[in-house]
């Protein structure tokens, strides 16, 4: 939908401020009631989901005026979707999508963020979001994995830019490959032929670039013959499962996050974790696996004229209900010696790690601030480690903890599974 088609949603915001907080019944105390990193950090109402909608409504009416503050608001948002979930507890309206459209429009109107420009340019030219030396597939050397670029596979393990190129995060790729192998899953990787899913570019506001990249990615995937794409990257998961579906690019490809697959494998006995991991852990729900990972619901229709905000056919709202929440938990529950203590903000109302929305590139300080809030919340549980299912979150957590000389350990779920089997 074009930005103008969200006019109803922009104007619907009544400024109730629910978007700033976790769903109200989930407020468990004074701490951890906030859910929007942007307004929590910057405090002005215009940094909240509702505030952004108010700005959009005004801009639709009076024209777009890209002042420095306006751009600051546009880019200091992780696009985490927490505001969307909280608002949709009570309202029938879109929140995240109209907010995304504002950023897309800013880019279209020539007001891209220079740091994000660099990243997207890299994607255009090199097919990666992450700068890296050497080849994309180098992490897999010596592992004897099937090369899907040359051999057809049913299951394609999509590694993702970060875990391919980043030396600190390649462990996730290796652990995933190890677990899949041990489980007897016949899979392949594209290695050097793998290209970026483009999802982060979409969040950064580069819709056209995303679509171009997505086409490239799907071409490469189709060539492998894969029916199922598995990934350990929550961002990639959401991109393939949801964004590609939204833009009609996914086709029949089944998209599965590694936590879902592993949960199934443990559940049906094909994977038997035996080793005692001995860890008291808390679990961070990545936005892109959780609330943003809810399956896309296609819809085309019109508002029914009259008194009520209802549509024909009824407009389905993705309210964060059906994100991937249980499989990672089931995995953790299946690992010997792992005790899970939940944080206050979980599942569809989890606090963002800070790694989304291009903020790690456009405003690293804000990304770190956001991560630090989450780390403190994790520490409150008494857990010795924070586990998640998203390498972008893990990287940011690890760096932030190290910067502050913290003791909290960071793991990807797949690493713990690999340890346990």
């Amino acid at each position: 939908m074009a930005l103008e088609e969200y006019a109803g949603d922009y104007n619907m915001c009544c400024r109730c401020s629910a978007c700033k907080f976790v769903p109200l019944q989930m407020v468990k105390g004074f701490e951890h009631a906030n859910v929007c990193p942007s307004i929590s950090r910057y405090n002005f109402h215009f940094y909240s989901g509702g505030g952004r909608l108010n700005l959009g409504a005004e801009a639709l009416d009076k024209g777009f005026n890209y002042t420095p503050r306006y751009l600051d608001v546009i880019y200091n948002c992780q696009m985490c979707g927490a505001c969307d979930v909280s608002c949709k507890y009570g309202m029938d309206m879109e929140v995240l999508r109209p907010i995304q459209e504002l950023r897309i429009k800013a880019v279209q109107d020539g007001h891209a963020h220079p740091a994000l420009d660099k990243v997207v340019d890299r994607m255009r030219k090199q097919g990666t979001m992450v700068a890296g030396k050497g080849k994309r597939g180098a992490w897999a050397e010596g592992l004897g994995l099937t090369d899907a670029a040359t051999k057809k596979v049913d299951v394609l393990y999509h590694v993702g830019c970060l875990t391919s190129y980043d030396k600190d995060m390649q462990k996730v790729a290796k652990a995933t490959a190890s677990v899949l192998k041990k489980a007897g899953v016949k899979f392949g990787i594209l290695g050097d032929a793998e290209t970026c899913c483009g999802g982060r570019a979409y969040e950064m506001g580069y819709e056209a670039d995303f679509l171009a990249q997505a086409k490239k990615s799907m071409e490469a995937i189709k060539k492998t013959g894969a029916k199922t794409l598995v990934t350990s990257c929550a961002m990639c998961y959401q991109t393939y499962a949801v964004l590609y579906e939204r833009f009609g690019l996914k086709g029949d490809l089944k998209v599965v996050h590694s936590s879902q697959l592993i949960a199934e494998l443990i559940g049906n006995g094909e994977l038997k974790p035996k080793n005692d991991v001995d860890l008291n852990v808390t679990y961070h729900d990545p936005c892109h696996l959780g609330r943003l990972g809810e399956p896309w619901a296609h819809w085309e229709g019109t508002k029914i004229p009259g008194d009520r905000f209802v549509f024909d056919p009824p407009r389905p709202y993705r309210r964060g209900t059906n994100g991937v929440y249980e499989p990672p938990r089931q995995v953790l529950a299946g690992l010997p010696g792992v005790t899970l203590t939940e944080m206050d903000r979980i599942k569809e109302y989890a606090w963002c790690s800070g790694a989304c929305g291009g903020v790690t590139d456009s405003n690293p300080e804000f990304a770190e601030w956001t991560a630090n809030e989450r780390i403190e919340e994790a520490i409150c549980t008494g857990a010795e480690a924070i586990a998640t299912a998203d390498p972008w979150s893990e990287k940011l957590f690890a760096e932030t903890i190290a910067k502050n000389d913290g003791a909290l350990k960071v793991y990807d779920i797949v690493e713990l599974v690999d340890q346990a089997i």
Partner: protein
Amino acid sequence: MALDKDIYSAFADVVGEENICDDPVMMAAYYKTDFAAVIMPGNTAEVQAVVKLCNKYKLKYRPISCGWTGVFIPGTVMLDLRRMDKIIEIDEKNMYAVCEPYVTSAQLQAELFKRGLNTNIKGSGAQGSALLRGHGPMDQSCGADDRNHLAVEWVTPEGDLVKIGSLGSCDEFFCGDGPGPSLRCLVQSTVPPSCTPGVFTKVATKVYHWPGPERYHLKGNSPNYSLAEKPPYMMLRYYSFPSVDKLMDAEYKLGEAEICFILYGINMAMVSANVTSSNEEQEALFHKIAGEVQGPGFVVILAGNSEKDFEYKKKVLETIIAATGGESLKAVEEEPQIEDTLMRQCTRVSGAIRETFRPGGYFKSIPVMGQRDLTVRWAIGAGEAKKPLIEKGLIVDDGGAFFGWGVEHGHLGKTEIFCAFSPMNPEAWKVVDAWESEEGGRALDENYFALTMSPLDVIDEKTGPKLSNYHLWWYKVLDELDPNGVIPLKGVSKLTP
């Protein structure tokens, strides 16, 4: 309307550069009003300094906390109190809590629940400030209006710090009145355009006993939560009555019997909105259950302090309902999820938006606090006046209903009636505005009550003279408290040049 450079710098010196914004483009997010600036003080001293600067430069200012609604004058300086968000104290022995303005009711309630305590939450929702004066579902047993405030830390319009009540004399928050006459006469907290002079920076609010669990343990995912365990000694029912008279009879009897934790007189449209997560679901449920009620009704929640207490309350409830011709809504009795959802929503006050804004996207309402039976009599007429608008399809069909409930076990009351409509429909706006004006005018002309959140020319010419000329006294009070004219009210009324 950006500030003069030097003035901007002066404010920035107080709150820090990151806490002031005068970009006119951003003001759209603040009530679409052309504020001079939005300034966010972080503590009482900063509030005072900002207010003193406003006095120095003769800039009008208004504070907001969570700030849902408001009507403001262009050129005003907006004090957004978001950074003042601490719970200062919870004193269980003296039954009060002290909060800064941006503590949400949800946060305060959650902390109080852990201690077996509770706070009344305004009907606008638990995302609102814990300090707000107003009414909500728990009024029956948890007081309401300005009657839950105790001591207040108040920055006057001139920027002086006045600690009202025991706070000023002995640095305690337990009492808001004295020495001598109470300055709580002036400080209520209210929604703009009404104008409480100055800024509250801390307020003590009464807390109440909570017999329920430390926390509602919920399962499921938004928006479909449910209780993992129904609290013992708590029960919710919806009762409908064959007439407004019977409903009022039951309401008064229940109030006098002092058995209800909550008596929440919402209509079927609101019930169906409250427990559903979309407009379509709401419509379907409304059509199903609207036929099951015999007339107007209310939600009752009983909460027993013990098993015996609970059983007693249930017995009395059944007796009163039977005596007044009430009938229990089967949908609540037979579908546990409805009882479950309503119980959570009413206690944690998280359903307001579903009831009001979701159906049409917008709503305008006439809320009245005061003598319950009197305001109900007026509301019947206001409800009838909605019906032609419903027939024309301009407002959401709720049967022309109004709602409300007894406050303080029926001593006082709250009645409200609203029209829900699409904000994109200019004709709907017109007719709803007209309805609001006509019904408000009728209330005044027929001596039921007066709406004092009207335009100032209406206050000066019509309303004020009919209300003991309160407006003239109020303007004189403001003259004394606000010599520099920084309260936005002044200069807008022709009586306050």
